[in-house]
């Protein structure tokens, strides 16, 4: 019999012992991989949001709480549209753009949709360009963004990317990707909304946000049709950079005391807290894995050594060295650890695929590098737990073992 065949034979003859040894490590690795997987993607999403929206500030009605930036206007509360002009005329340093929105739920060809009134930038840019006898705007810190006519950025399709639209006339509409797909709407089609006919001037690319289910029209048209008056649900303020945006918060709060000013950092605060908690949880599970899994493995190995005393005695009598016996137990432990680690990785990744969207609201994919970490950790824990049992087995006296026969 070879070294390897001895190990395989032993594993096959004592499957229960094998399973119980592996189980505790497998469960610990499963929990570790699932939590780590979800928290990595959640952190990436937060970082992505901060990258694309980090310089943006939201002006909301007081008392409105916000969980999703992209759904900032999905509430019943309103603020006067006059605030938009106040911000545009104030010439605040670092304000690159303003995008007020009013959201009205509608039925479009029997399907529920969200009609979003948005003010085109052409209506705002003239105001924003007025100064108090100065040609150049004050700007400190980062590079100021310029606003030159540009076919690509001025196209209505750019709304998905830039979150603003350059031109939008009274009875024109821009359709989100999901709605356009569901209703089969294309550029040039006519669509009836709230009793009036609109022309579709563009359909947007999918964004993966709630904007895919929106229909965008001119703010003043939506206000008139909804009978809402001169109000908006939110004003999105595009800052030039995060540092300036954070400084804007105080200025905006002073200018508009009847509103609530929210930065992206505030919006993602909850998610950041959850991510932090999940990271700590994953370390806790690692500790539990080491403690419980290791203890369980050690206990199983000790039991295995006692059970196989005669076998060990026989091997040593036949010439097996202490080193050989030690290696026998350690390699077996290593194999069990590897099985537990890889099994735990597969189970944990599968669990993350379910937990991610349902628990953390993020799409998750398996992370290959976690397999290495999971397997490596499990193997190390198994080695550590099995070292002393293996040394004990190697220290057995064959004569004493045979005495019990």
């Amino acid at each position: 019999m070879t070294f390897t065949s001895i190990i395989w034979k032993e594993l096959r003859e004592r499957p229960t012992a094998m399973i119980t040894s592996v189980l505790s490590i497998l469960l610990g690795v499963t929990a570790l991989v699932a939590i780590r997987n979800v928290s990595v993607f959640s952190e990436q999403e937060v970082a992505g949001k901060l990258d694309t929206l980090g310089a943006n500030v939201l002006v909301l009605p007081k008392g409105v709480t916000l969980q999703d930036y992209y759904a900032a206007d999905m509430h019943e509360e309103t603020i006067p549209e006059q605030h938009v002009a106040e911000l545009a005329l104030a010439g605040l340093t670092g304000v690159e753009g303003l995008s007020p929105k009013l959201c009205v739920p509608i039925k479009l060809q029997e399907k529920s949709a969200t009609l979003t009134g948005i003010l085109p930038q052409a209506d705002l840019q003239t105001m924003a360009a007025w100064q108090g006898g100065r040609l150049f705007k004050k700007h400190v810190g980062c590079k100021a963004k310029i606003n030159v006519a540009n076919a690509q950025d001025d196209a209505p399709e750019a709304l998905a990317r830039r979150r603003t639209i350059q031109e939008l006339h009274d009875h024109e509409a821009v359709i989100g990707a999901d709605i356009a797909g569901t209703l089969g709407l294309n550029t040039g089609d006519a669509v009836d909304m709230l009793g009036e006919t609109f022309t579709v001037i563009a359909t947007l690319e999918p964004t993966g946000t709630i904007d895919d289910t929106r229909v965008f029209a001119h703010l003043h048209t939506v206000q008139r049709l909804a009978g809402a008056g001169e109000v908006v649900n939110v004003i999105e303020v595009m800052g030039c950079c995060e540092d300036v945006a954070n400084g804007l918060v105080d200025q905006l709060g002073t200018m508009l005391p009847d509103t609530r000013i929210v930065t992206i950092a505030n919006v993602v605060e909850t998610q950041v807290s959850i991510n932090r908690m999940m990271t700590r949880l994953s370390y806790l599970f690692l500790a539990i894995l080491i403690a419980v899994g290791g203890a369980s493995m050690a206990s199983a190995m000790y039991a295995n050594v006692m059970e196989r005393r005669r076998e060990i005695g026989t091997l040593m009598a036949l010439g097996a060295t202490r080193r050989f016996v030690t290696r026998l137990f350690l390699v077996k432990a290593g194999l069990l650890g590897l099985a537990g680690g890889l099994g735990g990785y597969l189970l944990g990744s599968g669990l993350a695929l379910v937990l991610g969207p349902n628990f953390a609201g993020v799409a998750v994919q398996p992370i290959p590098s976690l397999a290495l970490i999971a397997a490596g950790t499990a193997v190390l824990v198994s080695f550590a737990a099995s070292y002393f049992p293996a040394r004990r087995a190697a220290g057995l006296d064959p004569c004493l073992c045979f005495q019990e026969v």
Partner: protein
Amino acid sequence: MNLKTYGRLRLLVACGTLFGAMAHCEAADPVKTASLSKTETSMAANSRQEKYSFIMFWKQQDTATNAMWKNLQAGLADRSDNAAPIAVRVNDPAEAALVDRFGVSRAPMPLMLAVAPNGAVTASYVRELDAKKIDDAFVTPTMTRCMLAMQNRKVVLLCVHGDEQTAPPQGVAEFKAIPCYQNTSEIVHMRVDDPAEGKFLSELKIRRDSRTTTTVFMAPPGVMLGKYPADVTKGQLIAELRAAGKGCGDKNCKHCRP
């Protein structure tokens, strides 16, 4: 019919045609004039006389409105040669086109806009107005040209001439000739020794004793992109615009190759 009678008939027809045409023109002018509101007519007249129009938009005749109007009239009392105050009620149907043109229907009121003779808005003030703000609204003629271009979302290449040159530097002319930028750029000329441009030269930090042409590249909404000597190339200008995030949109555009 003899020739004499025929000739008189022709003369009669010609006169009739002439008078008819004149009548049509006279009829057309009142129609065109009638489509302009009282304010727009005043603004047009001010513009012809090279006067600023200080337009105060108001909604309700409250304390703030009365105070602003009073300050405006007082501030322009000594400037009747180059400015005129105009009050516009935003809810007046006759002024709807003007209100729409400036997009102030939802703006806080009262709101004062200073409009230069060329149509550029040189200043806007909300609710409060004083003598200093009125003074600040008067800018140099070149500034009004730059402001108007930028308010129309064009980049401006301001050529400040300190020498005998009146044409733009070659690089500037080449940039303007690029199809991508023909309609989105404006070349404006100015001389360093123009006494009316002192304020602007200080803002640009260009010395009056400069003996060369400096090109100031600026973009809306009032961003100074750079200052260049006379040998600026179109490639430098294109690169500057791209660095500011606004190339023509086509990375492979053959016109925009340096």
